[in-house]
């Protein structure tokens, strides 16, 4: 049984603002029947078309999806469109006293519906649904390359959620967006996106100036502490051969040697080293 806060329970059992607004100024729709949750959000603006005077919702989904929708409508009433756009999925989760990690995607769905409604009202174009997806696009307004085919999630959308929420693992991305939660085939791609976003975040920050000696020490530390124990748990191992400038040369041992997916493992090692040491590092298998 999920550990829902009393506020989540209250908003699930007594949802506020259920229904539709026939003359709504803005409508945002995300999710689908197939995906297991969907939200249609209606916003009514004041005469100056600035402030949200009324908000209503219709939601198909679990208790936390209904509670997130209810919370969202309460939060945006009285706000200007720009103020409403500043509402993040964390704000929705906080309003509810927190959501179980696995249910964070419900708060993301609320925030997206809000954004879609306002973007559309402001005349931004809505792209076609992606035909590749099995059952409709979860967030049709985030164009990009489809990453998760099971839930219809694009790289553009994933990068936004990763950055907004400071996510660092693929499990977190699944909890927040559902991407990777079904067949799991896109998890490597999600990891790449995390690395990409983290890399950008690091570049934005001051680039660390590492002496060669310090770099070598850190690389060795990360290999010993974070990587080799994991490989050993699966019967594999690796050996650090050399560090030449930014090039880290490794050789796979035991089960990793000759393993068909050692290429992925090398990528993983590179991602970890970039994340924990410095993002200019390149890993070479020798």
């Amino acid at each position, binding site marked *: 049984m999920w550990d829902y806060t009393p506020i989540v329970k209250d908003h*699930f059992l007594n949802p506020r603002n*259920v229904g539709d607004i026939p003359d709504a100024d803005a409508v945002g729709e995300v999710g689908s*029947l*197939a995906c297991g949750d969907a939200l249609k959000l209606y916003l009514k603006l004041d005469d100056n078309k600035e402030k949200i005077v009324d908000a209503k919702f*219709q939601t*198909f989904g679990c208790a936390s999806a209904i509670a997130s929708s209810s919370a969202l409508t309460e939060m945006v009433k009285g706000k200007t469109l720009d103020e409403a756009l500043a509402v993040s999925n964390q704000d929705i989760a906080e309003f509810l006293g927190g959501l179980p990690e696995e249910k964070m995607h419900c708060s993301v769905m609320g925030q997206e519906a809000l954004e879609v409604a306002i973007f559309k009202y402001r005349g931004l174009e809505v792209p076609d649904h992606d035909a590749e997806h099995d059952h409709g696009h979860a967030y049709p307004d985030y164009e990009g390359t489809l990453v998760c085919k099971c839930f219809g999630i694009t790289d553009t959308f994933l990068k936004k959620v990763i950055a907004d929420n400071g996510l660092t693992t693929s499990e977190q991305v699944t909890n927040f967006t559902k991407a990777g939660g079904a067949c799991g085939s896109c998890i490597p791609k999600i990891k790449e996106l995390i690395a990409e976003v983290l890399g950008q975040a690091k570049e934005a920050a001051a680039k660390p100036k590492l002496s060669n000696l310090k770099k070598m020490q850190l690389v060795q530390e990360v290999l010993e502490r974070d990587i080799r124990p994991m490989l050993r748990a699966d019967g594999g191992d690796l050996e650090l051969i050399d560090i030449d400038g930014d090039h880290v040369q490794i050789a796979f041992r035991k089960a990793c040697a000759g393993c068909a997916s050692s290429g992925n493992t090398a990528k993983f090692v590179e991602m970890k080293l970039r994340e924990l040491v410095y993002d200019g590092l390149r890993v070479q298998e020798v």
Partner: protein
Amino acid sequence: MQVIYLDNNATTKVDEAVFEEMKPYFCELYGNPSSMHYFGGQVQSKTTEARKRVADLLGASPDEIIFTACGTESDNTAIRSALEVLPDRRHIITSRVEHPAVLTQCRNLTAKGYRVTEIGVDGAGRLDMDEYKKAIDDDTAIVSFMWANNETGVIFPVEEAAAIAKANGALFHTDAVQAVGKIPINMAASKIDMLSLSGHKLHAPKGIGALYVRKGTPFRPLMVGGHQEKSRRAGTENAAAIIALGKACQLAGQFMEAENTTVKAKCNHLEKELLAAIPHARINGGGADRLPNTTSIAFEFVEGEAILLLLSELGICASSGSACTSGSLEPSHVLRAMGVPFTCAHGSIRFSLSRYTTDAEIDAVIKELPAIIARLRQMSPFGREFLK
């Protein structure tokens, strides 16, 4: 709040008589059944009686019963044993709708070089026997099909499947955790080699199970160490729970007719009334032969977790095949294997009855559920669209 417990395929209440039977074996008669002294010996005579009672329910002989800790252990033991005694055969056959106790193990074995075929089911959850007949060959070591499905209650033709396995020199195991105690089983007239059962599904406590192994079937234990269970399952016997399981099996035999008449009638009544009161609802596995106590109903355009929590507010316990109730994000593998559309799978609710279920409890569900479904559909963007 009064609890209305309709989740008996998840676990059952320990029968008061079962509890009474096991009680003395904690603080008073706590001897080790393997001891030479009389104090331990009297425990052994009770576990011997329990073994006979379990065997009687299955139409088996007592030395064909091995006590284990749970259904999962029995399943694991059976499959591992078969692979060890038939080392030249590298193929496993199971079904796509098995319990994870079987399915996860089979899938893990592919990493060890075994070939695994998962036989599909039709829209009503019935096993594809043609696919099975095509898949089996002289490389098949073990076939493992569940006797009855935990989510839908659909019964598989395990006797027929066992005969086919035998003709191909393969061993046949059945996970009968949901079937034992609910439908008659007679291993004396069967070709099934191994059968798993679990105590807590038939009013015994959690933490006790059994594996039936037909006399003459080659066997390798999973747990080694002591000589308990004739060295087929080492480890000091959970004597109190074994005694409880014996009593529970004896009672299950006595209630077998009631299970298939009164309990079945209550389940049918619940199904009929809910379908009559709620539009856009359908039975998962409706066309198939099913257990007398189980019904899985799909309510379109609503999500299962929300239904369960609203039922729970009224003290009504059921379960769901929906994604949101588990850690995963997709609906149950059973419903997906059956090709149940996503629109239905997310809103599927399972009610599983027991001999303790009363008419008043069934009536309470019939009274409350239509309003819950209507309320959620009213809230759902699809409910309005499709139900106009």
